[in-house]
């Protein structure tokens, strides 16, 4: 019950926005340029077989593979930077600088390298999601309590003990925050990757429909993309709740 009431205001706002959109679209009455929400939903229903069977799976797979690679590379790099000062000094500035590179502008080169296979899209996804994961894991590790560390030392703890029993659990909340950001970015990454060259995928389909002036069909896969993003986000929230149960006892 509490959940329903806490979301009711944002729900109301969305309903109002959609209502205004619907009314103005109908007044404007050029559905090939500015489709109404109801027209988009109808188009989504008409295209459901093609979208769900043909275009959703490759996009979801790109997101999943991209995120997994980001988690592995990002966490490894963060742990290396945390354990060895020279590694931090070598990589941290580069890491920050890498974020000033317009990733989207770089994306065509991935098509050149990896062709129209799934890997060019995965590469774009990795490039924009590994940063929030690396930084959040690194900050999480650094946030571990120095007093607790000293207490463990007085108990005779080894460096390994401190890493596994103190640093890793301390980094977990921050890791999940980073993962939430990465999940939302991963949808963007996959869609951009598909624009540049693909044979299937929600981003690819949306762009193809644009060339056919079917704007309702441009929006329909976008609605799905955002639904995919929300699903992944909720999955992370469920995992977070499971692994950070102690937070409910504060």
């Amino acid at each position, binding site marked *: 019950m509490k959940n329903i009431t806490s979301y009711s205001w944002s729900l109301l706002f969305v309903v109002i926005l959609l209502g205004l959109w619907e009314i103005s679209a109908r007044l404007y009455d050029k559905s090939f340029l500015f489709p109404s929400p109801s027209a988009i939903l109808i188009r989504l229903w008409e295209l459901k077989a093609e979208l769900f069977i043909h275009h959703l799976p490759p996009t979801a797979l790109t997101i999943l593979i991209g995120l997994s690679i980001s988690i592995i590379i990002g966490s490894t790099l963060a742990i290396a930077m945390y354990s060895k000062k020279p590694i931090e000094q070598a990589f941290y500035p580069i890491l920050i600088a890498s974020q000033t590179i317009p990733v989207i502008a770089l994306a065509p080169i991935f098509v050149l390298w990896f062709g129209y296979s799934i890997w060019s899209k995965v590469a774009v996804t990795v490039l924009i999601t590994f940063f929030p994961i690396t930084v959040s894991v690194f900050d999480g590790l650094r946030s571990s*309590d120095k007093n607790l560390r000293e207490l*463990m*030392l*007085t*108990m*005779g703890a080894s460096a390994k003990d401190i890493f596994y029993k103190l640093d890793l659990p301390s980094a977990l909340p921050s890791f999940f925050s980073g993962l939430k950001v990465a999940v939302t970015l991963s949808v963007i990454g996959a869609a951009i990757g598909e624009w540049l060259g693909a044979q299937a995928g929600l981003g690819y389909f949306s762009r193809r429909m644009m060339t056919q002036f079917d704007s309702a069909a441009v929006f329909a896969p976008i609605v799905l993309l955002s639904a995919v993003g929300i699903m992944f986000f909720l999955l992370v929230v469920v995992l977070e709740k499971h692994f950070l149960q*102690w937070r409910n*006892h504060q």
Partner: protein
Amino acid sequence: MMTTKVLEFTNVSFHYQATNASKPTAIFKQVDWHVNEGEFVSIIGPSGYGKSTLFRLVTGLENPDSGEISLNGEVTEKRLGKVGYMPQQDLLMPWRTILENVRLPLELQGSTPSSDEIIQLLADFGLPGEENAYPGNLSGGMRQRVSFLRTILTGSTIFLLDEPFSALDAITRLTMQEWLIDQWQKLDKTIVFITHDIDEALFLSDRIFVLAEKPVQTIREVIVPLSRPRTMRDLARPELIELKEQLISELRSEARL
């Protein structure tokens, strides 16, 4: 019966290295000091006079520039893991249950204790049925008891308690002091207790050590003229009031400098 020195400083000097923000600070200069087996002693002194540094030296987090520190009669250079230390904040891991928190020192020693034993100990410590609770569920006084139990499970013969009750309210504090004395008498271990509350020091200790110079060259010893068991009312005796006044004026004259 001969008394054994469970902890002894011989000629110990120590200073903190200079950092960007501060000059090198000498804390101890050729200090001799000892604690006997089974004693309850307190250390009092104004902030910044080396109370915590003393503990860091005993636990092995710091090493003296010169001089020797002996544990149980032997000069011990690697002291980490040999002395039980209870910090000022409870420092319980919020992600571990009470049972898992208490188990930490045993895990670090590589032993696998049975949960039943620890659950029994928790009950003895006035925490029955709390083994699966998280630290966030417990009150300040309960968390300090968990923290003390964790210190005891290090298995050391000597426990250093760094102002463990300073964050508690007056009533809880009183209960905890009585409880601590009770535990100490049951355990038959040595306790070194840092406090800046003179009443607390007088009520708990056999001897009080005063750190009141910079750098510390001699640690002044005050023997508390009270037998056990004690009650808070004993502190109202004329000779204790006089002792208290004397300690206050000693600390105050230093604190002014």
